[in-house]
């Protein structure tokens, strides 16, 4: 008797699982950056267009495939065509790479969360140097938040060649992060289904709290005005459209096999069209919501830094010219400067080089993305708020929820094909398979806790998933439309859900989306080829800032291996299936 497939307890769990997977760190730390770089309010136009043209159709496709085939990615694509099992395998390989490096972010979030229970926050003050006469040199040159990130958290080495030792503190946090993930996926949909209520809803609670706090901060309106002022000329920039397309693509998590895995646990009659639209809309609106919060925080930070800069100039002038304390303010600064320049030209020209030009626009224009945004810029803003421990705890707790939600999807993408395959599941129980996968990932993930770990993290982050995913989704779309047959798929869906397929979806799947993906793929390839050697940002402890360096040959080899190992699965498996079939046909003599 065949074991019945585990199901979600109710459709809401499925929707929450998809939301918690799709809404991840990229919504919080990549979208605001793109918004800032490509024209503020006007970036929303290409973003929404790409959502409707690319995001929704491809999401619906993956969910429909998963729900119809009721298997993980490998089984699902084998059912579509025996030659296309490689697509599923490529998805699993990419998910494996992703889960290897993604959990280190959760480890860092745990690290910062645990350190938020101190007064003062450890990243708000510089530590003293060896003989207690001043502050640590590296911390003086950089800022205290950068010092805490690069020195205390990462203990980063000057270049990728200096590997250093495994740092035990981040390693412990990584082990904890993997234990938490194991706890959530241990029982399959039973446990995952309950956890996703929290990982989907709690980040929104925190974002709302932060929105209220952020909007009431001094200087928040500066940031919001800066962000939302549309720069319409950016609409003509092709990079804006390309980045909008890539952001939608990667933000929804297409091609990893997680969505197929989640949908395979659905009732066959589930209305996945409605769910696809809901999930993609919620994902995009979360991005916009998170960028409102981020920009009010940016505005606060920029205003704070601008005012500190002004105060430093005021202090410098007051001390050099022995003016009355409190006489110089921000409002009369320019006037008095002019007066001093004319009355004491000699002394003024001495002081002039030390005076920094304070500009609010310059402070706002520092656009940061990724780990830099969360662990350096946000912490800098938080340390200046009142009751900073509370805000810090809330923020890193939200990051943890977002990160773990995405990790659940990733591990589901790896575990579902494994538990589906009879070879593996007959020998080992479900708990042992999950445990083994988590253990292997944890051990490999220790690489990212070494002193050069952040550089390897950047390699994985930039190259492990980008090109491969585009190709995987392209093959998926072509497979469903042309290999399996769009009409056949349409009739399957109708039989399954009882609803027909709208002409819009058919047009997108068959025509527009594949073309879009091909153009993205061509753009990426040409970008890689044109830039020549690949470079990375390394932290220089003596200067206290980032410097650009070239990757050594073995790092380039690893990059090539990452991209190739997932892409080559598709043709290799197809070839393998073809050869085994030929051999089988050759073995069995034709019936007389």
């Amino acid at each position, binding site marked *: 008797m065949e074991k019945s497939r585990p199901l979600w307890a109710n459709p809401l769990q499925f929707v929450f699982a998809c939301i918690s997977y799709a809404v991840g760190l990229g919504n919080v730390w990549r979208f605001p950056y793109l918004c800032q770089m490509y024209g503020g309010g006007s970036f929303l136009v290409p973003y929404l267009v790409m959502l409707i043209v690319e995001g929704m159709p491809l999401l619906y496709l993956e969910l429909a495939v998963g729900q119809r085939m009721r298997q993980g990615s490998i089984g699902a694509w084998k059912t579509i065509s025996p030659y296309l099992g490689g697509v599923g395998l490529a998805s699993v390989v990419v998910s494996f790479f992703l889960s290897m490096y993604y959990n280190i972010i959760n480890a860092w979030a745990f690290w910062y969360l645990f*350190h938020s229970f101190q007064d003062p926050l450890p990243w708000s003050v510089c530590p003293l140097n060896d003989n207690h006469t001043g502050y640590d040199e590296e911390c003086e040159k950089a800022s205290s938040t950068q010092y805490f990130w690069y020195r205390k958290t990462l203990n980063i080495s000057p270049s990728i060649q200096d590997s250093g030792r495994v740092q035990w503190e981040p390693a412990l946090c990584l082990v*904890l992060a993997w234990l938490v993930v194991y706890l959530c996926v241990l029982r399959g949909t039973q446990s995952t289904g309950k956890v996703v209520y929290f990982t989907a809803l709690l980040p929104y609670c925190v974002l709302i709290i932060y929105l209220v706090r952020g909007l009431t901060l001094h200087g928040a309106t500066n940031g919001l005005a800066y962000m939302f002022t549309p720069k319409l000329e950016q609409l003509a920039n092709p990079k804006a459209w390309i980045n909008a397309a890539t952001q939608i693509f990667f933000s929804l998590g297409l091609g990893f096999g997680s969505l197929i895995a989640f949908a395979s646990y659905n009732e066959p009659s589930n209305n996945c069209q409605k769910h696809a639209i809901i999930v993609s809309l919620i994902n995009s609106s979360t991005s916009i919501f998170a960028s409102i919060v981020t920009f009010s925080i940016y505005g606060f930070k920029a205003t704070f830094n601008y005012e500190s800069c002004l105060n430093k100039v005021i202090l410098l002038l007051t001390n050099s010219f022995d003016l009355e304390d409190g006489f110089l303010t921000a409002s009369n600064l320019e006037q008095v400067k002019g007066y001093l320049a004319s009355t004491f030209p000699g002394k003024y020209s001495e002081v002039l080089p030390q005076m920094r030009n304070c500009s609010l626009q310059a402070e706002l224009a520092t656009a940061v993305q990724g780990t830099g945004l969360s662990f350096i810029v946000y912490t800098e803003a938080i340390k200046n708020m009142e009751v900073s421990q509370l805000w810090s705890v809330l923020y890193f707790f939200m990051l943890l929820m977002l990160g773990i939600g995405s990790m659940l999807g990733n591990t589901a993408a790896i575990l579902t094909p494994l538990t589906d395959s009879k070879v593996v599941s007959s020998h080992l129980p479900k708990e042992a398979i999950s445990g083994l996968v988590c253990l292997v990932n944890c051990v490999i993930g220790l690489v990212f806790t070494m002193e050069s770990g952040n550089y390897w993290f950047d390699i994985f982050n930039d190259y492990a998933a980008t090109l491969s995913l585009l190709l995987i989704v392209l093959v998926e779309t072509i497979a469903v439309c042309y290999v399996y047959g769009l009409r056949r798929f349409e009739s399957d869906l109708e039989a399954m859900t009882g609803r027909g397929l709208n002409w819009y979806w058919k047009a997108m799947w068959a025509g527009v989306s594949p073309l879009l993906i091909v153009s993205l793929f061509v753009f990426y390839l040409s970008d890689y080829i044109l830039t020549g050697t690949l470079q990375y940002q390394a932290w220089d402890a003596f200067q206290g800032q980032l410097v650009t360096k070239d990757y050594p040959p073995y790092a380039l080899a690893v990059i090539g291996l990452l991209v190739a190992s997932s892409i080559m699965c598709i043709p290799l498996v197809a070839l393998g299936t073809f050869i085994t079939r030929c051999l089988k046909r050759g073995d069995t003599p034709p019936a007389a």
Partner: protein
Amino acid sequence: MLCLLFFLVTAVGAELCQPDAENAFKVRLSIRTALGDKAYAWDTNEEYLFKAMVAFSMRKVPNRETTEISHVLLCNVTQRVSFWFVVTDPSKNHTLPAVEIQSAIRMNRNRINSAFFLNDQTLEFLKIPSTLAPPTDPTMPIWMIIFSVIFCIVIVAVMLLIFSGIRQRRRKSKGPSEVDDTEDKCENMITIENGIPCDPLDTKGGHINDVFMTEDERLTPL
């Protein structure tokens, strides 16, 4: 004669205390920055208090217990508020070495600051670096405590889930085998007469011949 002496003393005093003189220190106060509306005005009474605090600090140095307020000289008071000061020896001809004054002020910095409601940043002694507060390192870092708590909770939860899963599976594997046993027993109860098993005909899927069914009706009940 007395007038001349007095004149000489003040002249000497004026020479001893000058900007950038030997053993002279510049002091800078930012009263309005520190106190805002509650700022007090800097007048000669405040200067007297300052001299008293410096003399107090010097009296704590061994061999200098006889320092008087009159030994502390202030000059060049500006609007900022900033001024220079020196400390002379009892003969009022020489100034005390800068090193002694420096160490005396550093020892008593907190008392001097609190006398004026200021802190190290708002009452600056240029060329006298303030000792920074030593870092408070608790014996056990706080983050380790929280980490250990959460780690233990997660491990306990994982163990619970694993063991309950194993128990559930054992119960399930016992359950179907019990059902199988009773079925076997039923099958064993098939009576065999003359080597032919007497199964009820309908369980074997055979057809019942209705002719023989009516025989029961022919026998009259007793």
